[in-house]
């Protein structure tokens, strides 16, 4: 009898501390934001079907968008796991990727050689950048997210100067007249557009499956998953989830945070290469400025928090978020012609979910 009472009072405490509606186990295990977005996604897809939108085209688009954003969202996982919070300095990695693109094109490579070379170069650049970025984050513990955001912003602004002054000669990238690189550089000119997407791609029920793109994304997911099962990976998780305990058991937390942020930056660099080959062009100057936020929102929608993230969060979150955005565009356009409703929805959703995650961050204290 008393045992029952105990359990009951325990439940009472729990339901008091957690908001109403979260008591249902499924809500608790999946997370409220994920469920809301999923419901919304289903609603939009149903509306699309009712409005007689072409579902195969819509699904092909969703798959493509899912694959191209995936690795950028994946870049959040190592950073979150190591305890530095979502990598708001994702533009750092992105810029490494862009720099690799421009150098590769300048050297005159084309096609798959260009992409492979770009990936190698981007990895090297990002490893070096990530090292210094990790050092910076170790110096500013407690305010990583704010500092990371401005590190990203100022690097993007600094790189604008580089893009404008870099002594590149390639006709693919420069203006017809004057100096500096163009804002948007097409990859069709160097035969690198959609190469990975088209690898082994096939159509089923008129839905185009970008096999290469999806395979690459899942391969990276798998690699990261493996990494967090190695000794280093486990040490990183330990340091992120309970720093005092990890330090007491002799784990070098600073070093682990460094490794995790190098990994995150490298994934950002590779992520933008996948992203831009799928789009068929890449954007310099202020293009990367705001790119961290959709990626952060993506992993959070999947059910991650500022201190906990898994590969499953990446896959679910990217699919739901990108799927919703892709599907809502034609639907909104058909329902309310001339309004930019889907873009407005993106802004509200993306920043709303980040704010929600920030309210869940512990440790600020009074």
């Amino acid at each position, binding site marked *: 009898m008393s045992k029952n009472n105990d359990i009951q009072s325990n439940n009472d405490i729990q339901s008091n501390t957690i908001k109403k509606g979260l008591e249902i186990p499924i809500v608790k295990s999946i997370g409220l934001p994920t469920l809301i977005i999923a419901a919304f996604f289903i609603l939009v897809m149903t509306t699309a079907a009712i409005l007689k939108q072409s579902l195969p085209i819509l699904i092909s688009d969703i798959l493509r968008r899912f694959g191209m954003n995936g690795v950028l969202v994946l870049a959040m996982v190592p950073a979150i796991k190591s305890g530095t919070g979502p990598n*708001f300095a994702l533009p750092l990695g992105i810029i490494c990727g862009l720099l690799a693109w421009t150098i590769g094109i300048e050297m005159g490579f084309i096609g798959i050689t260009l992409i492979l070379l770009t990936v190698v170069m981007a990895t090297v650049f990002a490893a070096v950048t990530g090292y210094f970025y990790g050092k*910076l984050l170790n*110096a*500013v*513990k*407690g*305010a990583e*997210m*704010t*500092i990371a*955001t*401005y*590190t990203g*912003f*100022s690097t*993007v*602004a*600094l790189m*604008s*100067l580089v893009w*404008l*002054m870099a002594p590149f000669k390639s006709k693919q990238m420069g203006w017809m007249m004057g*100096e500096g690189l163009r804002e948007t550089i097409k990859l069709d000119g160097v035969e690198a557009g959609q190469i990975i997407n088209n690898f082994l791609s096939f159509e089923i029920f008129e839905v185009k499956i970008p096999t290469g793109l999806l395979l690459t994304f899942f391969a990276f997911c798998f690699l990261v998953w493996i990494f967090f099962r190695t000794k280093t990976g486990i040490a990183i998780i330990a340091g992120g989830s309970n720093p*005092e305990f990890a330090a007491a058991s002799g784990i070098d937390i600073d070093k682990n945070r460094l490794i995790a942020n190098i990994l995150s930056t490298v994934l950002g660099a590779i992520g933008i290469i996948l992203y831009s080959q799928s789009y068929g062009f890449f954007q310099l*100057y202020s293009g990367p400025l705001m790119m961290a*936020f959709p990626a952060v929102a993506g992993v959070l929608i999947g059910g991650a928090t500022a201190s906990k993230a898994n590969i499953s969060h990446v896959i679910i979150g990217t699919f739901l978020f990108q799927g919703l955005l892709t599907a809502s565009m034609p639907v909104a356009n058909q329902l*309310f012609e*001339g*309004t*930019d*409703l889907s873009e*407005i*929805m*993106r*802004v*509200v959703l*993306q*920043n*709303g979910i*980040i*704010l929600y995650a*920030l*309210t869940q*961050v512990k*440790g*600020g*204290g*009074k």
Partner: protein
Amino acid sequence: MKKAKYILSKQMPYLADNIVPIIFIAFTLLGFVLTTNVPFNFFLSELSSRFYRNAFIVLSLVIPVIAGLGLNFGIVIGAMSGQLAIIIVRYLSIEYLHLSGFWELVFCLVLSLPIAAFIGFLTGKLYNKTRGQEMIASLIVGFFANGVYQFILLFATGIIIPVRSSHPMIKPDGVGVRMTVDMGELHYSLQNILKVPFLWAVLLVSVLLLALVISRHLMGKKGHNKDNRVIFFTKVGLSAVLIIYSVFAIVTKSKITSVKDVPAATIIIIGLLCLFTELIMKTKLGQDFRSVGQSQHIAESNGINVDKTRIIAVIMSTVLAAWGQIIYLQDMGTLNVYGAHTQIGMFSVAALLVGGASVHKATVSQALIGTILFNSMFIMSPEIGKAAFGNALLGEYFRTFMVYGIIGMALGIYVWNANRKARITLDPVEVHTQDN
């Protein structure tokens, strides 16, 4: 040894705090050396009009810093409230009321008060829930509010809120507000109330400054140290030089007389806000701001309602930002409905930091000096780009870099110092046991 370390740790942040203003002064001076085609009176005209436009909104950042909320990037929300008020007033004025410019302005200021106060209240609540992460939260909440703002103006207007589709502010298809709204009668409505020739204004202000500095010195506590005295004489010297120079220029009718007239009403309003910010710090509320800013824990144990105090600070900041944006826009003449507010948070924060403020410390004079220095950089940057590299665009990118760089650097230095101090004063092991 201990003392040396103490002095070092006291002097280092002082230098680090002031390195930014020094860089900016050097940069502006470099601009004058490099470029020959920027006449000084043009520079002053440009700088002064930018100052009247921006000073108010930069001042709105001071209170949250004192209350420990850090740099409130959320003033963008205040700016949006101000713009919302302008749009409503302009719409009603064209449609029914046909007000004169002055009354439109008054209506805008009154209407923006409840809007901004309500949104400020919500923002304050949010900051209380994201304690310790206020700055990133304020940045993101600005983006979030921008989405809501676009929803109201692009979508709800015309579909949910009925409007006349042939109204000049509404898009031709009857849904949404146009990209740009003409300020009409509002343009210069504050500016035109009273204008004073530039040099007379300089003379007046510097005489007032001199009086203020001396009266403060006389009323202040006894036993000033050397540092204070040096600062006092520098201030007196500077105001004296300004007085002598302006009298000299008025008498000799130098080129400076061609600098644009000073809008006295704007200056008076800015002055009143400075006074308000200074005076409120002497009240009970101001003391609460300060103690909450120093330590929320101690403030709470002293019986201060920390959450409420922080919300009040945010409401004040948001309302002031709304008014600041109205003052800014009545000077600009056209309202870029979906773009006018997006940069204002970054620029204002950068300006405040350039004045020597930091995340936990800001004064009225830092805001004013910062506005002047920051805008000098803004004017000179493209000119330097053109003169040094033959490319004005380069200068523009450079100044964007300066904005982000300054904010990042100021934040970085602050956190780094705070972490280092925590390490010097408290052994980590002790902290651990205290926590338990």
